[in-house]
């Protein structure tokens, strides 16, 4: 009996190591995949409720997740050296596509963000969420760190050109996320503290300067943006309803598909930008803590993987990808809970719609590629 138990144990170990071998062969990081899968699965459960029990909505999201998973698997197998060498071309290509979109959008007399490729619509700004941090990491790869003033000036151009092109679409939310992804690379590269402080001071001065030149109605607009509660039927409606949803959920929530705020449509954007509030209402504080735990685990794992890579490009890019993921979570959660102004940032892997799921998973694919081939890097 005892012998057999040991055998069974060893068989389990053998099975596990077999699974590990598969992961290794696929260049995939097990813990990261588990974390991402759990978030995605949790998201689908919530989405079914938040979409008003719409199965097609859930199935479309599953399709996107699968597409993202394929992108992740493919990118995980790419040689990091190839990735690094092709980075400038990817970046320049992305900028060119943004110019094309801007041109079409201009002639079409309206906001335009995507290119219709027949089979699917493609948003070049999504590509830039990856291309910009890649380009920054590529630029710093050969250079000594912390970056010099001239390097910083060059990086500023690298970041601001695509950001400006996205901002004029106009898509300020995505533009800000692209800028943050690029800026995080520079921070990780060892940007000096006093430079950051100086930048903060400059920003504050610019804000004060701008404020003193604004008309009353413009100031009012800014204040409404910063504190939507002053406009309960307009900009404030979303945030008031989402706070009611989260607050009324309490510790244990009202139960799956039983959140009155979400189900009776008091909560706007319930399946997209404000899905965080649906979780808060139906699964309560515990449900949100579980979600945050999963996110923090994924981000922590990503940062750990980044520290294990062995060259500058890989480290900076991997670190930036992981941190950007957390920035998405924090901005969305902060907005829905009323800590931050309302900006259109979806909750990663949970919010319905958009090509951001594919971009996110592609980013994690790149991260895995950088980690799994770490011993080959620089060879």
């Amino acid at each position, binding site marked *: 009996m005892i012998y057999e138990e040991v055998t069974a144990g060893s068989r389990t170990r053998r099975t596990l190591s077999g699974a590990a071998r598969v992961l290794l062969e696929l260049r995939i990081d097990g813990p990261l995949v588990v974390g991402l899968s759990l978030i995605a699965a949790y998201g689908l459960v919530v989405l079914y409720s938040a979409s008003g029990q719409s199965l097609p909505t859930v199935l479309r999201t599953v399709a996107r997740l699968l597409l993202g998973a394929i992108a992740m698997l493919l990118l995980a197998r790419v040689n990091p050296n190839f990735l690094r060498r092709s980075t400038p071309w990817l970046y320049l290509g992305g900028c060119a596509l943004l110019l094309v979109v801007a041109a079409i959008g201009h002639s079409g007399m309206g906001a335009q963000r995507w290119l219709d490729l027949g089979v699917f619509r493609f948003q070049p700004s999504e590509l830039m969420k990856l291309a910009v941090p890649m380009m920054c990491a590529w630029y710093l790869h050969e250079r000594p760190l912390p970056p010099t003033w001239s390097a910083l000036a060059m990086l500023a151009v690298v970041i601001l050109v695509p950001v400006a092109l996205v901002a004029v679409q106009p898509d300020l939310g995505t533009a800000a996320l692209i800028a943050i992804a690029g800026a995080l690379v520079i*921070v990780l590269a060892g940007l000096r503290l006093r430079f950051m402080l100086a930048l903060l001071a400059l920003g504050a001065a610019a804000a004060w300067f701008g404020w003193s030149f604004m008309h009353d109605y413009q100031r009012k607009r800014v204040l409404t943006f910063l504190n939507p509660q002053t406009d309960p039927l307009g900009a404030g409606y979303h945030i008031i309803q989402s706070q009611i*949803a989260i607050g*009324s959920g309490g510790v244990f929530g009202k139960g799956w598909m*039983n959140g009155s705020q979400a189900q*009776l449509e008091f909560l706007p954007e319930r399946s997209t930008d404000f899905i965080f509030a649906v979780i808060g209402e139906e699964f309560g504080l515990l449900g949100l803590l579980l979600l*945050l735990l999963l996110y923090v685990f994924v981000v922590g794992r990503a*940062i750990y993987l980044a520290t294990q890579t062995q060259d500058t490009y890989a480290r900076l890019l991997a670190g930036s990808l992981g*941190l950007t993921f957390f920035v998405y979570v924090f901005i969305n959660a902060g907005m829905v*809970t009323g800590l931050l102004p309302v900006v259109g940032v979806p909750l990663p892997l949970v919010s319905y719609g958009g090509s951001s799921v594919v971009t996110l998973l592609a980013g994690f694919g790149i991260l895995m590629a950088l980690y799994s081939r770490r011993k080959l890097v620089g060879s």
Partner: protein
Amino acid sequence: MPAVRIKDHWREQRLFDQRSLACAAIIGLASIGLIVRLFVLQVSRHEYYADLSQGNRVRNEPIPAARGLILDRHGEVIAGNQPAYQLELVPEEVPDVDKTLANLVGLSLIRAEDVGEIERTIDSSRTFDSVPIRLRMSDEDVARFAVRRFEFPGLDIKTRQTRWYPHGDLAVHALGYVGAISEQDLKHIDRAAYAGTALIGKLGVESTFERELHGANGFRELLVNAQGRSVERQGAFIPTNLRTRAPTAGDDLMLTIDLTVQRVAESALAGHRGAVVALDPNNGDVIALVSLPGFDPTMFGRGITAAEYGTLQGDIDRPLFNRALRGTYPPGSTVKPVIALAGLTYHVVDPEAHRFCAGSYHLPGSSFIYREYHNEHHGAVNLDDAIARSCDVYFYGLANEIGVDRISTFMAPFGFGKPTGIDIGGEKAGILPSREWKEKVFSRPADRVWFPGETVSFGIGQGYLTVTPIELAHYASIVATRGRIWRPRLVSAWRDPRTGQVHPIAPVSEGEVPGVAADDWQRVVHGMIGVTQRGTAAAIGAHAAYVFAGKTGTAQVYTVARNEKYNASKINERLRDHSWFIAFAPADAPRIALAVLEENGGAGASAAAPIARKVLDAYLLDADGKVKPHS
């Protein structure tokens, strides 16, 4: 030349690790910040947000309570409730609103000129709300629509309870009416208690007893979505904790009014302006309260139009004016009994002594001449004759001898100069003049002095003295009971509609007239019986099955110059004298006392007295013309 920096991989790795650690710390802090925020929302302020969420999803739909009924003393319904039909339209269920409205115009269910207004109402309503497009449908309208109903998807006939007065304008000035709640009403009612109620009592019993009649509205909690649409379920679950509270119907009120007597009084006075107030002298119960012309109270409840209201307001006969409670008129000779009582009580007059009436009276020390009505000559009259034949000259002298101060003091307990305190609002008081009154009211010093001549007029109920019909009826009932005073009342009991239990309201005694000897009461009553048997109203009293006491009165509207004769046929109908009659019966044990006023009716004996006789007969006699036994 700056030093050439070369990549130091080991140092860069360490820098990156430091930065990663710092970022991880920031992530940790940010996460803690988020968690604190969630704790505030979901734990500290959970109840606050739970309330807001409940308020979002649940809407209270009021269920109006049935208004209490108003019944006469025999239990006959005077004011009840009746469903009113209205046509309602649910915009989202109507395929083509314009076409539908055009078709309704074709059926003459709505008027073409109203279509624009109806369309605006529909546009401003939510698509799933039922919009009333035609109120007050007649039975015929309902039938016409019912036949074509299949052509009108999204349209339906809804009923709502509205006040219904089965006897039309009968007793309207006692009842009052219900009308739409006005801005004015909103100031003194609890809005929550009236949610779902469209009508409120105005005037009369309907207004004074609003609280009892209204009852308590119920409510039904409905689950609503963000658009306010009522929904059955919320996500996957059907909520079970929605509450409903049934409404409590208002109390029914039992009036003291006898509808039979009321109807007789109204038809007797019909075609004239005037008032009849009949009281039970033994408890103050109002047997009939008439003010004509009246109006149909139902039209206020179903929604009166501006044109209809304008007609009522502009009517020269003032149908909205409650003459019985608010009309003040000189009482004329109807005050003579109380003047006589004052003379007897103050021992100013010997009841058997005769005075000579030659048709005019000279006030001692004055050149004024006070004429007898119609220039009659009564010859030698004692007190009994003076009352029965209404000799002015006798009372000119008597009043002058008693003096204004004593007359005023003596008359006060009979209710002159103050409201009777009847249990409905809107009563106005007449004027009981006195030296003090005159000094207070007039501004010019010359006017503030009481002149002896004014006392002379006072003696026959002219001059400053004014009364309302209910005051005069109250006075008649006090004389009838030889001095017992009861506060007039219209509501004798209320009935709980659920248990059917009747809660009587005790009549309110206000004591007795002090200091009048029983013999003196008897002498004056005897004089009043004389009025109906051999005096001014002998024609009216003839062949009565009971002995009744009365007094005629004629109130001057138009002052005839002292050297001029009053000629009714020559002056405008509206300037003719007002006709009064007060009476009570049976004279020895009175069961009814009344006052009748006919505006511009001329002499009391010819206009008001016949009406009084009909009312007395209606109350006292059975179908065979025999006096009913006292119940």
